[in-house]
């Protein structure tokens, strides 16, 4: 697996996609830092961009990469390597190269702005952790969808729909439900509903770290109230790990059964 990982990683970090993503991160970071002139505001603006952008990037790249490398996978499958190792290697190769693009793209501007010496450093690290979680999670989801659908257009469509649903529709429906049932105690519902959306989870994770109650939103406040910052962070981190692991396990199961 390590060998497959190594080669997909080196293939990908030289591709235009990864450079493009790196440049996008770089431009956004410099732009936000320039306009907000304040590190903590910069981090919050960055979070709002990243919560939508990273899942989208991972979804698009994950789909395209898996469909594009189908013929090449055939060549690898005929070699004396385990099936699961080939695809686990591809998954890690893509997620790690995206993570590298992200870390460099946001790290360079924030470090140049002197964040290391300020109290915002830990917040920035938490933002980075959440952002990388999102890359891994959505790469896994799009890989799972792409391996299930032979037809690449349909597979791509389903992946994009999942992104759209989790990034936007979910919050809308969630808010609507809160409004409709406002007479009822909804904290537990809100708590559970958040756990089922990795994007909300990442937002809560960052918000708990930033500890700005005005910005926490309803779910952040619920997490804070019911679980406290420590336990809240643990629960959201644990749920994010599950969000990485579960799609990946299903993906590997599909890989083992599939005909190529």
């Amino acid at each position, binding site marked *: 697996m390590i060998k497959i990982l190594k080669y997909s990683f080196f293939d990908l970090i*030289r*591709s235009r996609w990864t450079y493009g993503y790196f440049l996008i991160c770089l431009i956004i970071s410099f732009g936000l830092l320039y306009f907000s002139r304040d590190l903590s505001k910069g981090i919050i603006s960055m979070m709002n961009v990243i919560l939508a952008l990273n899942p989208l990037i991972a979804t698009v790249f994950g789909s395209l990469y898996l469909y594009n490398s189908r013929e090449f996978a055939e*060549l690898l*499958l005929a070699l*004396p390597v385990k*099936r699961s190792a080939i695809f686990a290697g591809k998954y890690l190769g893509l997620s790690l190269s995206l993570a590298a693009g992200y870390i460099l793209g946001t790290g360079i501007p924030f470090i140049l702005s002197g964040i290391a010496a300020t109290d915002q450093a830990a917040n920035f690290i938490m933002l980075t952790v959440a952002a990388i979680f999102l890359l891994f999670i959505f790469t896994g989801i799009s890989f799972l969808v792409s391996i299930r659908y032979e037809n690449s257009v349909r597979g791509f469509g389903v992946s994009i729909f999942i992104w759209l649903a989790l990034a936007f529709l979910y919050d809308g429906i969630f808010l609507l439900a809160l409004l409709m049932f406002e007479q009822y105690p909804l904290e537990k519902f809100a708590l559970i509903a958040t756990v089922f959306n990795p994007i909300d989870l990442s937002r809560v994770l960052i918000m708990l770290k930033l500890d700005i109650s005005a910005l926490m939103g309803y779910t952040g406040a619920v997490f804070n109230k019911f679980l406290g910052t420590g336990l809240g962070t643990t629960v959201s981190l644990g749920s994010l790990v599950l969000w990485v692991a579960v799609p990946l396990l299903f993906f590997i199961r599909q890989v083992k059964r599939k005909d190529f």
Partner: protein
Amino acid sequence: MIAVKNLTKSFGRNEVLKGISLQIRDGVITAVLGPNASGKTTLIKSLLGMVIPQNGTIELNGADIRNNWKYRQQIGYLPQIARFPENLKVKELVRMISDIRNSEGNLLPLADIFELHGVMNKPLRHLSGGTRQKVNIALAFMFDTPVYILDEPTAGLDPLALIRFKELLNKKKNEGKTILLTTHIVGLVDEIADDIVFLLEGNIFFSGALELLRQMHNGQSLELSIAGILEGNHD
């Protein structure tokens, strides 16, 4: 020896292999023939573990290949469409396959035969279809494996490369290698194959020595013999 017993495979409702059994002799060239969609590629992919059959067994030298990946160390494979990671250079691809196989391989004579020295430093996306196929052939033959499985190996080759490819096949055969290939080109089979497996709609129509097929059809050319099989099937 490769022994296939009662192999069945369907994709959804489409039954591609309908319980086929055959044996592939060591040290000879066996050609798998058949019209489009007769199950050639599915058979080959089953041998490589890329397609998982519903029923039946496949044995390589007496060992079942199911849930086993190490047996592929004994097989060199040439896939039908040569599409590679676009950003890799030929040299890097060769190094990668050697690395994954844990074997140095011997590319030099193949690079000489197919005149690949000039393209070693080029990214794969800049190569023409024929050159990609030459790279594909070189990758399949650069490792010293007892079995070679080739899916449509001559696609896109120019006449000179085709002649050299046939020489290469004969050389490998003389070294005692087992070669299994699929093709649509009857002339090629006539020239190089010892055994034939003729697939038709997921069944084996003929399996055995080329000579035997000729005798059955009164010494007609292979092309006519095959036409005879196909016509007989339509009656």
